[in-house]
């Protein structure tokens, strides 16, 4: 059969044809049956009548071709002694049935003639099972042999007898394997390659199957009538590439055996293609790189939009992705810790990531920390509950092993496992995070660990070694008793749990039941005895007490707190006095009910420790009705409805031994009240309110007074009811004033109620007036200080301005301005007729805003000789580079100009800064040599003729208004040339002041003044200057930086 499988098709068919008729020793397999035709020659006449022969004559039998029965029909001698033999299987391979039937039987039935009977005897023997069966019959025989579900080769022997003569058949063999259909293939599954190809695979049902042909059919679940069929020869896989994603397919396979029997269709296999992971499960070690491929079967999903998620929680950086092709994405990750992780490849869909339910699993071998904690309960000492942490994605099983030695010893020899078998948590593998182990020994040691399901035992947690005795949580103590004694002692006792038997320590906590809003438990412990006596600050208080316990020495857990127990207050007699109380009356307009709330002052607890108050009794007496009473605990408030009839309320104290005898009562009346107060006034200072009142003389004196007010500290918005905000104080009848010292806001309204025996008098109200002016004084002081500060700031600002803009240089002293009529210059081009001057040093950008300044030089009457002009070129040519660089160096300082820009230099163009220009007159040029900063050294200046002090040089200093300029200023002052430094300023007011000064100078030097004034106006005239408005040129004159020097030659 193996040979057939590997043979080419045509050869197979030939071999099958060869095998077909001769298989089974004379018979043929057809329609799941084995057929044979056996014909025998029997000596007829002799054996029938005389019977003299000792040895019956023996005939001969031969097997004929069962598929070609013409031979038997042609031989009438044989035809009567021929047998049709038929074998088939019954049931599920349990029985083989063979039937032999003579042709004579059929003929006898048709001819109705009496003929001697043919006796057929059949022996059936199963070779493998060694079972045999015998059967006999006249003309026909049927045998059945049990096969016990296994395939077998069955031998068949037939003997026929007729009139004493017998014939034996040759040995016939039937293979039951060929009497059944082949089993349909099993283990249908599919793989996906990293190229996205879907390979469908199956296995033969039996290892030595002789299946040679297969047929695969598949259809979508919704169209099961339209099968796609694929035929496969000689291999048990097929590539299916025409499948669509998102569709649920059903696939079935059948096979054909070498004798052309087709199997049934296999069990259906369902699958949906969406995203396939290759591999779907990975085993790795910590720190190793893992690459997983994802194939998008959905053609609308692109690998370029793949998003990989680790454990569905963390987006893996895109740098770790690779796009293999349009439908295949890959990711490479490194898992550092042992454990279980998942990878999901999702598809970006707007802001979200669409994912399907499949994911790849990564098992990182090693031990992870699961934080296993166990606790055994005293009530069930053989039971221990363990909890752990794990990945939400992992299925785990908890395993444990019992040791008879101490845990410390076992931990030390970890690794040398004994032969004991592992036991498992009864709940088995799953999504658990806890397990309860039962039937444990309290004093044994247990090793407990987790194993990740599917991790082949290689992914597990660190084990913990636990002796249940060390992790017992005992039952809480019981039979708790507590008594509050008169000597300010709380006496508590309890009973410890019986098990475990080790020594216990206890902890007790208690809280006073009075004033429940402030429930601060006080803890006492550790206590070694099951009783305690606690000193209290006051007696007569009930306490809620709870106790817990744990092992004294060694580890373990605290038990739960015991059941609460309320202490009993020890009393010898009933209380003597009832509490004082007042009332708040509130109308409920919705329900048309008037509610009265009694505001009860707490009884004095420290009064008599032997007659403690445990509760109150409120006794009511309404007019015309019977008396009734209610019992309450020690409450601060008690409310009841009032029908606006005369209603008397008495509040009494009570304890277990009785109620108080001296009690205060109150009568509520609805009718008009009598007036008895003449005046009521209140004066408040910072901490106290002084209240005073007087009574009308012709009225009876009340029993007492009650003064009430609302506490404004308590916010009515925060569920503060009126009764909780209401404050009151009772005053004896003889008093006519009261001083209340506490925090008041000053706007409280006080109400004085005279209280008579038979009810209240008419109340009187007043609002406290504050006599304390401290706040107003403080306010005045602050206002005064603010004004002082403001004035100081103003003055200091003016002073600063004066300091900054003290001197303004005069551009007319600039050398480059020689011979220029500034009034005639409209634009910068006119100002610089020589283009090379601008190109050499493009200091000013046209687009920049311009500040206009007028400078009038305070000049001496200078007469400069024309021949001195010759010196200027010498200076320029001889030191031009130096000059330019010096200028640039100067101007390289950051510039600043208030509110505008001016005198732009290459370095400063584009900046907004304040600049100023310094105009120097060279009265004493030699002194300038020592000036620091941006001033030029005039030592080499050719035209600085010391013999002619009227020679002057003007320098433009373009500097930041900064420390450097300050230094310049100070330096110039120190050298006595401060009066010759003038700074351009933009302040118009200041400019006017300067103009006045300039006018004084003008009166002294009339000749030069006219010239300079005209020149100056043309170049530096302020745009809005009123003093020179008549002479303003049409365009905005420019204030230009000094970039050339020249001796001034007055005309």
């Amino acid at each position, binding site marked *: 059969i193996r040979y057939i499988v590997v043979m080419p098709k045509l050869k197979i068919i030939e071999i099958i044809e060869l095998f077909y008729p001769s298989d089974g020793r004379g018979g043929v397999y057809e329609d799941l049956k084995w057929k044979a035709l056996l014909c025998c020659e029997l000596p007829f006449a002799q054996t029938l009548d005389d019977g003299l022969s000792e040895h019956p004559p023996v005939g001969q039998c031969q097997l004929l071709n069962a598929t070609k029965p013409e031979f038997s029909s042609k031989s009438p001698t044989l035809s009567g002694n021929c047998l049709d033999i038929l074998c088939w299987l019954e049931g599920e391979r349990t029985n083989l049935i063979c039937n032999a039937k003579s042709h004579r039987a059929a003929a006898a039935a048709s001819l109705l003639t009496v003929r001697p009977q043919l006796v057929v005897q059949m022996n059936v023997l199963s070779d493998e099972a060694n079972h045999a069966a015998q059967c006999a019959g006249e003309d026909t025989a049927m045998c059945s042999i049990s096969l016990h579900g296994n395939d077998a080769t069955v031998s068949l022997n037939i003997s026929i007898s007729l009139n004493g003569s017998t014939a034996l058949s040759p040995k016939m063999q039937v293979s039951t394997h060929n009497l059944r259909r082949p089993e349909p293939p099993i283990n249908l599954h599919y793989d996906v390659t990293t190229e996205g190809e879907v390979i469908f695979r199956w296995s033969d049902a039996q290892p030595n199957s002789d299946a040679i042909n297969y047929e695969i059919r598949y259809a979508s679940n919704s169209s099961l009538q339209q099968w796609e069929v694929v035929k496969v020869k000689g291999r048990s896989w097929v590539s299916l590439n025409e499948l669509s994603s998102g569709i649920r397919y059903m696939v079935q396979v059948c096979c054909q055996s070498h004798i052309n029997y087709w199997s049934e269709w296999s069990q259906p296999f369902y699958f949906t293609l969406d995203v396939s992971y290759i591999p779907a499960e990975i085993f790795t070690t910590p720190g190793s790189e893992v690459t997983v491929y994802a194939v998008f079967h959905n053609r609308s999903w692109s690998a370029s939009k793949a998003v990989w998620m680790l454990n*569905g929680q963390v987006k893996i950086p895109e740098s770790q992705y690779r796009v293999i092709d349009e439908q295949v994405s890959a990711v490479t990750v490194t898992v550092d810790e042992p454990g279980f992780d998942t990878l999901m490849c999702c598809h970006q869909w707007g802001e979200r990531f669409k*994912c399907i339910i499949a994911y790849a699993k990564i098992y990182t071998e090693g031990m992870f920390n699961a934080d296993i904690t166990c606790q055994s309960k005293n009530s069930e000492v053989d039971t221990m509950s363990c909890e752990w942490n794990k990945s939400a994605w992992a299925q785990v099983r908890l395993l444990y092993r019992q040791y008879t030695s101490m845990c410390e010893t076992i931990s030390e020899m970890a690794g040398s496992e004994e032969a004991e078998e592992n036991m498992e948590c009864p709940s088995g593998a799953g999504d658990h995070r806890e397990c309860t182990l039962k039937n444990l020994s309290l004093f044994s040691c247990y090793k407990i660990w987790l194993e990740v399901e599917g991790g082949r035992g290689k992914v597990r947690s660190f084990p913990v070694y636990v002796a249940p005795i060390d992790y017992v949580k005992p039952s809480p103590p019981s039979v708790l008793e507590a008594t509050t004694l008169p000597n300010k002692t709380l006496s508590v006792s309890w009973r410890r749990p019986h098990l475990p038997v080790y020594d216990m320590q206890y902890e007790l906590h208690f809280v006073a039941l009075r004033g429940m809003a402030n429930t601060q438990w006080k803890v006492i412990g550790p206590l070694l005895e099951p009783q305690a006596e606690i000193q209290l600050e006051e007696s007569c208080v009930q306490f809620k007490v709870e106790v817990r316990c744990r092992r004294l020495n060694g580890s373990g857990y605290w038990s739960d707190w015991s059941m609460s127990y309320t202490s009993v207050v020890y009393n010898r007699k009933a209380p003597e006095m009832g509490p004082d109380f007042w009332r708040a009356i509130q109308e409920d307009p919705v329900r048309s009910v008037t509610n009265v709330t009694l505001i009860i002052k707490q009884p004095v607890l420290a009064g008599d420790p032997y007659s403690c108050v445990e509760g109150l009794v409120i006794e009511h007496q309404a007019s015309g009705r019977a008396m009734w009473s209610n019992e309450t605990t020690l409450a601060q408030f008690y409310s009841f409805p009032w029908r606006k009839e005369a209603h008397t309320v008495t509040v009494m104290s009570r304890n277990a031994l009785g109620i108080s005898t001296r009690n205060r009562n109150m009568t509520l009346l609805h009718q008009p009240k009598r007036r008895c107060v003449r005046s009521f006034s209140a004066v408040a200072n910072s901490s106290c309110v002084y209240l005073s009142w007087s009574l009308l003389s012709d009225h009876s004196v009340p029993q007492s007074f009650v003064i009430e007010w609302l506490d404004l500290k308590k916010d009515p918005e925060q569920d503060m009811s009126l009764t909780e905000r209401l404050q009151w104080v009772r005053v004896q009848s003889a008093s006519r004033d009261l001083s209340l010292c506490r925090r008041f806001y000053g706007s409280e309204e006080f109400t004085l109620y005279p209280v008579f025996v038979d009810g209240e008098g008419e109340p009187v109200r007043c609002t406290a007036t504050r006599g304390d002016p401290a706040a107003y004084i403080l306010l005045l002081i602050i206002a005064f200080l603010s004004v002082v500060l403001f004035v100081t700031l103003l003055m200091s600002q003016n002073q600063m301005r004066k300091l900054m803009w003290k001197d303004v240089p005069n551009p007319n002293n600039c050398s480059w301005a020689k011979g220029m009529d500034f009034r005639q210059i409209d634009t910068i081009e006119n100002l610089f007729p020589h283009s090379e001057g601008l190109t050499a040093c493009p200091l000013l950008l046209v687009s920049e805003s311009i500040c206009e300044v007028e400078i009038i030089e305070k000049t001496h009457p200078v007469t400069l000789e024309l021949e001195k002009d010759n010196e200027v070129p010498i200076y320029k040519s001889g030191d031009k580079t130096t000059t330019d660089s010096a200028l640039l160096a100067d101007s390289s300082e950051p510039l600043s100009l208030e509110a505008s820009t001016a005198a732009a230099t290459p370095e400063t163009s584009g900046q907004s800064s304040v600049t100023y220009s310094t105009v120097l007159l060279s009265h004493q040029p030699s002194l300038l040599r020592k000036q620091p900063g941006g001033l030029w050294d005039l030592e080499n200046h050719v035209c600085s003729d010391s013999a002619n002090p009227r020679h002057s040089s003007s320098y433009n200093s373009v500097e930041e208004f900064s420390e450097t300029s300050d230094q310049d200023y100070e330096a110039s002052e120190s050298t006595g040339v401060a009066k010759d430094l003038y700074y351009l300023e933009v302040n118009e007011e200041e400019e006017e002041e300067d103009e006045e000064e300039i006018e004084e100078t003008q009166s002294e030097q009339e000749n030069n003044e006219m010239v300079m004034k005209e020149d100056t106006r043309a170049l530096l005239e302020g745009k809005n200057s009123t003093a020179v408005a008549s002479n303003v040129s049409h365009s905005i004159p420019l204030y230009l930086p000094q970039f050339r020097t020249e001796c001034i030659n007055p005309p």
Partner: protein
Amino acid sequence: MYFPALLYPCILGMLSLVHGIPIHPDNLKNLVKLQADTIILRIKDYNDKLKLYPKLLIGDPELYPEIPADKTIQGLGSIVDTLTTFQKVLQRLPKGHVSQIRSDLSTLLDYLKERMTSMHCTSKEPANGRSLDAFLEDNATHHITVGYLALDRLKQFMQKLIVNLDQLKSC
């Protein structure tokens, strides 16, 4: 007092009658609402423990039709049908935290089935039994996401059930 021996059988008989009385429709509505609210909260706790990336969308509503998504509620029959499907899914999930939800769902199903019996409603077999089995078998290894998806859809169905409690009155 006179026949105390007869009184006890009477009381016991009345108690047995009370046990047999079907739940009043309004009581059933309350019970169903309480149980559904409980299931919703348990599902929220369970799915929150996964701490999934907020942008993740596991399983479009049009995907995995084997698990009911956005099923219409038309009477008790449809509710029981859908819940039975969910119960099947939960039974295939691993043991663990989902056990409690499965138990709650089982209780809810019992209420509804009892109501169906008392109303003489005919029950039918769930339509997609085979494909559901096959789906669960295929995805048995992806139980976390299957559980997440199923519980999310069950939560939505519970929310829908709470606002359609009147459907409990019809078969």
